[in-house]
């Protein structure tokens, strides 16, 4: 692997975390972002599960698309097939974890099934194909790095927001803003702060 490839992989990884963050820039996966970010440890568990599923899902859906769907001209089936594959994968992962890693299974427990219908996971697998279509050098390895980066980006967003929310708990918030309203306001402010990363990664890669 030459230096140029490694450099582009690092750029893809950083871009997936910072400028193309699925939660804060693409606004996918908002449901767990708001739902499971009340505490730092649950946010961390959920994000780890999402990262693992994102990478495995991309590893399986990319070949299916490239070698089965695309040659037949069946690109329009991708949503259906990908959801099917992701759901099956999550089930399989759950079975494997229950058998070989019970502590991890217990800590992830309820989050794993939730990920089945997480739009961020589906988004990663589908949007990566658009990138591949636009740039021929964006292959399997790049897709996997992108998926891992997206997962880490999800983790970063969740941890940041969990930290913000834990601090919000102690604040004297006006009654009308308590609960979901202040959470949404805080989420938008965190998203705005991520806009500041735009352009940073392009410079890094150049």
């Amino acid at each position: 692997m030459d230096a140029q490839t490694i450099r582009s992989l690092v750029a893809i990884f950083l871009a997936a975390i910072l400028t193309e963050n699925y939660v804060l820039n693409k606004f996918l996966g908002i449901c767990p972002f708001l739902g499971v970010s009340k505490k730092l440890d649950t946010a961390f568990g959920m994000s780890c599960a999402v990262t693992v599923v994102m990478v495995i899902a991309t590893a399986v859906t990319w070949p299916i698309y490239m070698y089965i769907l695309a040659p037949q001209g069946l690109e329009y089936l991708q949503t259906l097939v990908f959801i099917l594959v992701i759901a099956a994968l999550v089930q399989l992962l759950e079975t494997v974890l229950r058998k070989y890693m019970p502590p991890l299974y217990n800590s992830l427990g309820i989050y794993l099934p939730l990920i089945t219908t997480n739009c961020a996971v589906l988004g990663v697998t589908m949007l990566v194909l658009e990138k591949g279509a636009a740039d021929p050098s964006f292959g399997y390895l790049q897709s996997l790095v992108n998926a891992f980066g997206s997962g880490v980006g999800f983790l970063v967003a969740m941890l940041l927001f969990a930290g913000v929310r834990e601090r919000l708990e102690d604040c004297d918030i006006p009654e009308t803003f308590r609960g979901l309203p202040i959470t949404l306001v805080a989420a938008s402010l965190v998203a705005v702060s991520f806009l500041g990363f735009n352009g940073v990664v392009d410079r890094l890669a150049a």
Partner: protein
Amino acid sequence: MEIVTPIMIVGVIGLLAGVVLAVASIVMAVPKDEKAEALEAVLPGANCGACGYSGCPGYAAAMAKGEAAPGLCSPGGADVAAKCGEILGSGAVEMERRAAFVHCMGSADNTTEKMEYDGLESCTAASLLNGGASSCRFGCLGLGDCLAACGYGAIALCNGVAVIDPDKCVACGKCTAACPKGLIHLAPVKAMAVVRCSSCDKGKATMQACKVGCIGCMKCQKTCEAGAITVKNGLAVVDPAKCTGCGKCAEACPRHVITMERA
């Protein structure tokens, strides 16, 4: 014929996924504890937490491991305790039925209101405001926090004081936790005396606050032949284990605050 290929592809992928999952679930099956499953089937499934474990599955698992004794399930009562004992092989377990009792008779007839309370309809909220509106600082506020906590419809508010039907009560203990005044206690259901007061005030203060409050006159303690009643901090307390249910204390009580329960 165009439609055949897509159907085939989706079908095959779905079938493959199904087969892989089915094989995985057989190959990597985790043996569940049969005992725990059998125990869970016997338990009521109300997940009330009266046993001290996180719901019925938690209690069943703890029993199967030998960490918990059968008979902690008060909603299930003696039936469930016996069945659990059978499954565990420890033989029949004797368990007396318990119920919650409200230790206050401060109804609107017996107490007055020291202020007009116009806040939240909640005993917890009211008790934060100078101890609530009742003239007795220990007494029932009658706003029904226990009523809201009870999942079995065993509690009623009668004239500003909570009353529990021992036949409906399963002794889950939710109301004892919900009462901000700590007036509700669990006790065995048997023939015994219950002091329906929790006031630790001195006799004179109690008399001013309530028509029936215990003034700590010691008459019941002197009358009791079984030594089941002791007066502490100006309040008579019955020990259910010693009480024979003879009823002499109730006759002796000048305040008529001792009631006799039937089995």
